[in-house]
């Protein structure tokens, strides 16, 4: 976005926690594809006399997320009521947290092409989801299955300056909650949703703009990116005319990123927050915090940094490995007990040839991850050539055959007898006097001789060894 304006963005992200039951009742929280209103009880249906009882597991997951995002923990926390009327809000209020959120003052480190950046986390709190309004044929139908499902809200500081930072943050956050098993964060199922707070300022200015536009209910990262583009254009046009965009809440028209005004500042909702009297204050003990901390797995950025530092894996490869738990767990199992020279190579093969096979070919049930290790070891130990190793991998992957057997069958074992190689090299030199002459003038021309020798060796020799030998012999 080459422009006179700089983006100022803060994000609110809602993540649906992975718990068995809902936030304040014992209804099954896994409502996906269930018949409408089949996962409801007096509590989440908002019937008179029903009372909320907080889900301990959900609170633990919220604390876990807060710790992962380097937040401080409010050891005395409470729930509050956020009051407003809407048909899909059965109680006429949402149970949320107002002034004592579970976590506050944290951060997430993200990486873009521009390098690393730290994004501040203002607060993390626990709340419950609303029901769902389904509009069709001029009617509105209500499904309360989603009502009362636990949500973690993560509010960032207005620290984003580019769209790429926003994307990197959302992906990193999704990765973190998945690593922690806090949420499956499946955006198709609405398990991760975004609210954008965005304004623009002239490049070079350092104060926050005098307005802020809020866009609610964004269901995916790709739509979020489109909204940023749309709003950037809309707001810059207003600013270009010397006007200030209105402080307002906007909503999406469709998935194109286009937004429309929903509410301006004058008629902003007054949620009349007050402490939820049906739920006692919650004390989070130091013991509980330590226990949750002890359960914490290594987080994506730390893992990536360690791969780069300890194993010398390049940053892009490391990023590909840390994508998700399954990917890094497979990798870490493969490299267990191996020396670093193997590990770097395994990382490359794993994210390169292996990933491409995963995406393009059917895996044979007989293929084991350890076979990839065996193949890479043979390459590193110069027992087979790289090119042949690819073929071995593909055969093993698709047919489940043992790599050693494939190598033997195909006769891929490298000729490591230098005497045999020397014999061939000498023969090639003797048969190509013109080429030898050229190569003596220009060492690059020696590649022809190397190629000839490799052909004679049927490729079963280390190209570098052959090249070294050719150069040695012609220089004499």
């Amino acid at each position, binding site marked *: 976005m080459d422009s006179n304006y700089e983006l100022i963005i803060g994000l609110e992200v809602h993540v649906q926690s992975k718990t068995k039951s809902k936030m304040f009742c014992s209804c099954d929280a896994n409502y996906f594809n269930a018949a409408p209103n089949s996962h409801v*009880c*007096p509590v989440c*249906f*908002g*019937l*008179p*006399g*029903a*009372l*909320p*009882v*907080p889900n301990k597991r959900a609170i633990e997951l919220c604390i876990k997320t807060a710790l992962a995002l380097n937040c401080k923990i409010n050891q005395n926390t409470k729930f509050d*009521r956020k*009051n407003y*009327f*809407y*048909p899909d809000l*059965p*109680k*006429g*209020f949402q149970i949320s947290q107002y002034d004592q959120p579970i976590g506050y003052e944290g951060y997430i480190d993200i990486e873009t092409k521009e390098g690393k950046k730290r994004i501040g986390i203002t607060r993390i709190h626990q709340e419950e989801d609303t029901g769902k309004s389904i509009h069709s044929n001029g009617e*509105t139908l*209500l499904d309360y299955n989603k009502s009362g499902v636990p949500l973690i809200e993560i509010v960032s500081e207005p620290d984003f300056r580019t769209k790429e930072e926003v994307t990197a943050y959302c992906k990193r956050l999704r990765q973190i909650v998945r690593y922690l098993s806090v949420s499956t964060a499946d955006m198709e199922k609405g398990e991760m949703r975004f609210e954008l707070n965005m304004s623009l300022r002239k490049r070079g200015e350092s104060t926050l703009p005098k307005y802020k536009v809020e866009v609610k209910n964004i269901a995916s990262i790709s739509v979020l990116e489109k909204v940023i583009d749309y709003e950037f254009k809309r707001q810059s046009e207003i600013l270009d005319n010397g006007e200030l965009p209105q402080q307002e809440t906007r909503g999406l028209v469709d998935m194109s990123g286009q937004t429309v005004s929903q509410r301006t500042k004058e008629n902003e909702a*007054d949620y*009349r927050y*007050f402490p939820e*009297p*049906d*739920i*006692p204050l919650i004390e989070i003990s130091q013991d509980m915090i330590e226990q949750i901390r002890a359960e914490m797995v290594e987080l994506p950025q730390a893992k990536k940094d360690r791969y780069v530092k300890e194993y010398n894996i390049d940053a892009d490869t490391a990023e590909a490995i840390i994508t998700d738990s399954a990917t890094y767990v497979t990798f870490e199992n493969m490299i267990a007990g191996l020396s670093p020279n193997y590990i770097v190579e395994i990382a490359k093969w794993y994210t390169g040839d292996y990933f491409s096979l995963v995406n393009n070919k059917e895996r044979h049930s007989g293929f084991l991850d350890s076979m990839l290790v065996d193949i890479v070891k043979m390459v590193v130990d110069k027992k087979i050539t790289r090119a042949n190793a690819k073929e071995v991998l593909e055969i093993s992957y698709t047919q489940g055959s043992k790599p050693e057997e494939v190598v033997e069958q195909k006769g891929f074992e490298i000729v490591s007898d230098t005497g045999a190689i020397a014999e061939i090299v000498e023969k090639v030199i003797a048969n190509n006097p013109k080429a030898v002459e050229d190569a003596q003038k220009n060492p690059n021309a020696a590649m022809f001789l190397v190629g000839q020798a490799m052909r004679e060796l049927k490729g079963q020799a280390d190209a570098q060894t052959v090249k070294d030998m050719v150069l040695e012999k012609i220089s004499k």
Partner: protein
Amino acid sequence: MKQPYELTIKEAIDLMNDGKLTSYDLVKSCLDRIEGMEPTINAFTYISKEKALQQASQIDERRSKGEPLGRLAGIPYSLKDVYNTYEEPTTAGSKMLDGYISPYNATVYEKLTQEDAILIGKTNCDPFGFGSSTENSAYGITRNPVNTEHVPGGSSGGSGAAVAYGGGLFSIGEDTGGSIRCPAAFCGIYGLKPTYGRVSRYGAIAYASSYDTVGPMTKDVYDNALVMEVISGIDEKDATTSPSDIPQYTEEMMTTIKGKKVGYVKEFMGEGVDKDVKEALEKALEKYKALGCEIVEVSLPSTEYAIAAYYVIGISEASSNLARMDGMRFGVEDSASNWKEKIINARGKGFGAEEKRRIMVGTYALSAGYADKYYHKAQAVRGLLKQEILKAFEKVDILVTPTMPVTAPKIGENTDDPLKMWLMDAFTVTINPVGVPAMSIPCGTDSQGLPIGMQLIGKHFDESTIFAFANAFDSSKE
């Protein structure tokens, strides 16, 4: 000999155990009494005749076979019409819930059913507990059986009247600012507001969640203690219930009060208290002195602000609690196609004047720009009040005050002056924000023969001391 409907729970149980009374005859006697009294009193919103008689026969049969029975086997009782049960309607005294049948049972009902008590009906009340006279109910006013020109008190006025005239042997009231104690005082019965958290609120339609309590209204102290043993205890469906053990109230009420310290609250004996009420209280204090207690004067200076603080917090919570009455899933509906109109119209039609008044004032008190001045200020007063009362309990074992500054007003006397009605509750509303238990017991009558109630206020979870003082007072009468 007494008619069965005139019996206490203990008397009835003893007679049934001795084979001198059947549950069927007891229930029938109460139902007949109800039939005779209701045209005048209107204590009930719903009467469960067939089901109650059927249950009574079953209990009698089980008893004749020698099967084990619950502790309240065959005893007919009523529930204030704020408790959800799925076989009877639950209206909360409001038109909003006219004909509403709940799909679930309140915990207190489950516990009583577990002990084989028999529900004979639901009692009239001010809508959602909003009132001290049962004159606001959408189902007509309830009259005081002691003198039908007078109100029975409220909001559990139907319960007070029913117990007083024999429409069931006890009732479960609900007390947010005096709704059990006020009708107990006006109708001359025993009403306990337990410690907040002692009895589960699950299934009780909420007025103000941080004040609401569920308690027994009975004909004597023993019955009250007995019902408390049944309905108390932790409930996994109410996060505010306490895990502390349930005392044997019926035994602990026999404890001597000799040597205990009785505090009388200076501020509750002054201006505005009827002469007869004051005299009755003074006599009661004399009696406690004669029983070996030391009488200590206690001052609660913050009570001056207690009514204001009570109402601000209470109706703030109420405004939020009643938001679920939106005509979308139950209750009064409206056919407007626009959701906002649908909700506004349903609430406009369903709520009566008192509900609207409290919702509006409560909403205002929580609004941006006003919450600090009202809601948060009131919470500060609540903190102060709590401190003062806890401090008083460092010096005394119990506080004794009039339950109400007056005896039952005449019907219609205060309906044009809601403020006067609100002020009448000064001595009861002070208790709920603090959460301590308090009981109203009869301590005489005024010159017109109307009952006077004495309020015994105990420490948190110390209902036993209240029962002991109530029992000592009654025992010395005979």
